C-alpha cells in the first residue's frame, strides 16, 4: 500500500442507477470506501445491497453513474484486486480442497507456485491443513465457510467484499474471522462488509452505509451517525427526589424497568442540566448514563420510519 492510497478512497461510487425493466434496484447511489477501514453496508432484504455489490465486483454494470476502484474506472483487470464472498456460498462439491483453491487462485491471476505457498499458509492458519486433499463435500459447513474465505483472500486483495461472512460460523470461528479482518484493516486494505447483524456491524465497522428501497438512507462514520441520532435517553438507577422527574421540563417520559429506569428527554434537552437538578434536589444516584442509540435502534428508526412516517425519509 502506497501512502497516497491511504488518502485516496479505495472505492468511489458516483450516482449509480440500475434498473431491471420497470424495477429500479439501485437509484442514484453515491458513497466512498476508504482503505484501512471496515465499511458496513447495511439494509433490509431487497434494498439493493446485492445489486450494488455485484456492480462493484464487475459482475454487472450500472445503467448510469460510475464506479472507480483505486482511482481507476472498474475493468476486468481490476477484478484481480478484489476478494469477494457472495451471500450464497459456492464451492465445487466433488473437488478436493486444494484443487478448488488452486482454481480460484488461477482465476485471480495467481501463479501456481505462489498459490501453492499461500494455500498452505491459509489452510494452516485456519487449522485445516489436514483437509488439504479432502473432498469438499466431506467438510463441515463451518469448514467450507473457511475455505470460501481463503478463496477470497488467497490473491491478497486490496478490497475485500464480504456478504454476510459470519452466517454458519460458530462463535469461536466468528472471533477468529474478526481477528483476520482486523489484521486486514491494519494492512490498509478496504473491507466492505454487508450484514443483517447489527451487533456485529456495530462492533466492527468504522463507517456505515444504510440503504433502503434502492436509496441511501444513512451514511457516515459510526460515531457521526450515532451522535447525529441524538443522545436523548438516560439510564438511571437510584432514588430520585420526589417530583423532580415529574416536574422537570426536560423530561418527556419515564419508562421503569425492574432495576432501573429509562428517562427520555425532550428535544434539545441537556442531560447535564437534569443531572444537576437531580443532585440539587437530593436524589440518591447509583447510575446515571447517557444512552447512545444502538445501530439496531437507528436501523429500525430509519427503515421502519420510512414506512410509517414520511417526514423522516430524508434522514
Amino acid at each position, binding site marked *: 500500500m502506497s501512502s497516497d492510497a491511504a488518502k485516496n478512497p479505495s472505492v468511489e461510487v458516483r450516482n449509480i442507477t440500475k434498473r431491471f425493466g420497470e424495477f429500479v434496484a439501485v437509484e442514484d447511489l453515491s458513497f466512498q470506501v476508504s482503505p484501512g477501514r471496515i465499511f458496513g453496508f447495511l439494509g433490509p432484504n431487497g434494498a439493493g445491497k446485492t445489486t450494488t455489490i455485484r456492480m462493484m465486483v464487475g459482475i454487472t454494470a450500472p445503467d448510469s453513474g460510475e464506479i472507480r476502484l483505486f482511482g481507476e474506472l472498474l475493468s476486468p483487470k481490476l477484478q484481480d484486486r478484489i476478494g469477494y464472498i457472495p451471500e450464497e456460498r459456492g464451492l*465445487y*462439491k466433488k473437488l478436493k480442497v486444494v*484443487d478448488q483453491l488452486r482454481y*480460484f487462485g488461477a*482465476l485471480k491471476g495467481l501463479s501456481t507456485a505462489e498459490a501453492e505457498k499461500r494455500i498452505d499458509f491459509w489452510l494452516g492458519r485456519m487449522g485445516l491443513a489436514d483437509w488439504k486433499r479432502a473432498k469438499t463435500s466431506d467438510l463441515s459447513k463451518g469448514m467450507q465457510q473457511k475455505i470460501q474465505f481463503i478463496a477470497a483472500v488467497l490473491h491478497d486483495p486490496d478490497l475485500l467484499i464480504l456478504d454476510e461472512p459470519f452466517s454458519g460460523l460458530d462463535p469461536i470461528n466468528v472471533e477468529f474471522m474478526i481477528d483476520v479482518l482486523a489484521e486486514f484493516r491494519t494492512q490498509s486494505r478496504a473491507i466492505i462488509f454487508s450484514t443483517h447483524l447489527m451487533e456485529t456491524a456495530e462492533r466492527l465497522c468504522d463507517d456505515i452505509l444504510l440503504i433502503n428501497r434502492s436509496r441511501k438512507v444513512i451514511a457516515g462514520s459510526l460515531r457521526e451517525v450515532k451522535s447525529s441520532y441524538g443522545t436523548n435517553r438516560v439510564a438511571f438507577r437510584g432514588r430520585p427526589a420526589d417530583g423532580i422527574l415529574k416536574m422537570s421540563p426536560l423530561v418527556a417520559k419515564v419508562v421503569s424497568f425492574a432495576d432501573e429506569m429509562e428517562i427520555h428527554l425532550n428535544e434539545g434537552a441537556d442531560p447535564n442540566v437534569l443531572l444537576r437538578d437531580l443532585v440539587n434536589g437530593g436524589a440518591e444516584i447509583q447510575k446515571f448514563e447517557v444512552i447512545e442509540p444502538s445501530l439496531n435502534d437507528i436501523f429500525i428508526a430509519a427503515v421502519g420510519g420510512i414506512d410509517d412516517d414520511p417526514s423522516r425519509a430524508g434522514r
Partner: protein
Amino acid sequence: MRKFFAVVKHEYRKVVLRWSFILGTLLMPAMALVFAFVPLLIFSFRGEPAKIAVYDPDGKIAARLEAYFAHKPANKLDHPNAGRAIPMVSGQQISTPPAVIESDFTLVRFTTATAEPEAVRQELLTRIRAKEFDAYLIIPQNPTAPDACFEFRSRRGGDFTLSDVLLNGLNQAVQSQRLADARIDESELRQLTAPVRFDAKGLDESGAEKDSGGVFAASFLIALMIYLMLAIYGQTILGAVVEEKETRIAEILFSSTRPLVLMFGKLVGVGLAGLTQLSIWVGSALSLVAIAAQQADFRPLLKSVPTITPAMVLLFLSFFLLGYFLYGSIFALIGSAVTSPQEGGQLSFPPTVLMLIGFYFSFAVIRDPNSSLAFWASIAPFFAPITMPVRILAETPPFWQIALSIVVNLLAILAMVWIAARIYRVGMLIYGKRATIREIWKWLRHS
C-alpha cells in the same frame, strides 16, 4: 488468456479425472472386444453330438448319406470329430462301419430282425427313451419314389439346424440315388448344373473396388459414435453449467473473469476431454485392426474393412468438434436457464432430437451418398457433423462440399456461441425459477 487456460485446465481435469470417464474410456474398447468375440466363443461351444439311428432296410440311401456327410469339405475344418472312429453302440443291431459324424450329430446305422415298420418304430422309441439314441430316421422302403416319406423324430426338437442339415443330406442322397437309377453320370451332371459365380462389389469415385458391406458397417459405426459422443459431452456441459449455477459458484467466477471466457473455456476444456477419449478409442480400434491383420485367420474378415486414411481421421475429428461446439453451446445455454439438473434434462430434449434426426439422415447418406438429400444433410448445420463423416467414408464428396460444410457450420457455431453467451451471463445470476422463453428472449435482446 491465462485465465482462459485456467478454465480449460480446470474443466478438462474435472471430466478426465472422473471415474465414469476412466471407466468409460477403458470399458468401451473392452466392450467392443466382448461384442466381437463372445458370440464366436458361444457358438464354438457345441453340445454332445446327437446320436441318430438310421434305419434303412435297403441300405442304399444310408450309405449315400454317410458318404455325403463324410465328404462335405466344411466338416474337416469346423469339426474336430470328423473322420474319427465311430463309436460302436453295443448290441447286435449295429452294423459296421455304420456311423458318420457331422457337426452336431453321429449317424448310427440301425438294423433289426423284424421288418415290420411299426415294430421297428417301437423299438427305436424304446431305445430313445433309454437315451441310447437321441433321434431316429426311418428311410422308407422305396426312397426314390416321389411320394416317399422320411420319418425323423428327435428328442432335441428345438435343434432346427440339425433337421435342416439332415434334410439337405437326404435330398442329396436321394437325388444321387435317382441319378444312379437313371444311369446318369453324377459328376457330369454336377458339372453341367454347377451354379455360376457371382462377384458383386461396389465402386468408389476413382473406380476402385470396395466392399459395400464393410462400408455400411463402418459408416453406421462412425455415425453412432459421433452421435453418442455429442450426446454424452453435451450432457457433461449441461451438468457443469447447472452445477455452477445451482451452487452459486458462478457469482465468484463472474467476479473474476468475463462470462464469455468462462463459457468458452468450459466448452474447450470439456471438448478436449472428449477428444482425448475419442483418440483413445480410435487408437485402440486401429491397433486392434493392426493386431488382427497379423493373424491369418482374420485376414478375410479385414478385407471388408474400408480403408481409412489419416486425412479422413482428421476430418472425422474436425466434424466431431464442429458438432460438439454447436451442441455444446446449446447445452450451456440451457444449463444457464434452468435451476436443477432435472429441469436441464427436460429442456435438453430439443437438441437431442436434432442430433437424432442427424443420425437418421446418415442412413439416407449411406444408401445413396450422391443424392441431393445427402448433399443438403451433409451441409446443413446441426446435421452435418454426423452426416458428413458418413458421406466421406461412404463416398468422399468433392472437396468444395466438405469446405462448404465446414464454413457453414463454423458460422452456425459463431451465431450459437454469441446467443448462448448473452443468455449465459444473465441466466447464471438469476436464481429461484426456471426462465421462460420470453425472459430468455428479453435477455438476448437487452444484455
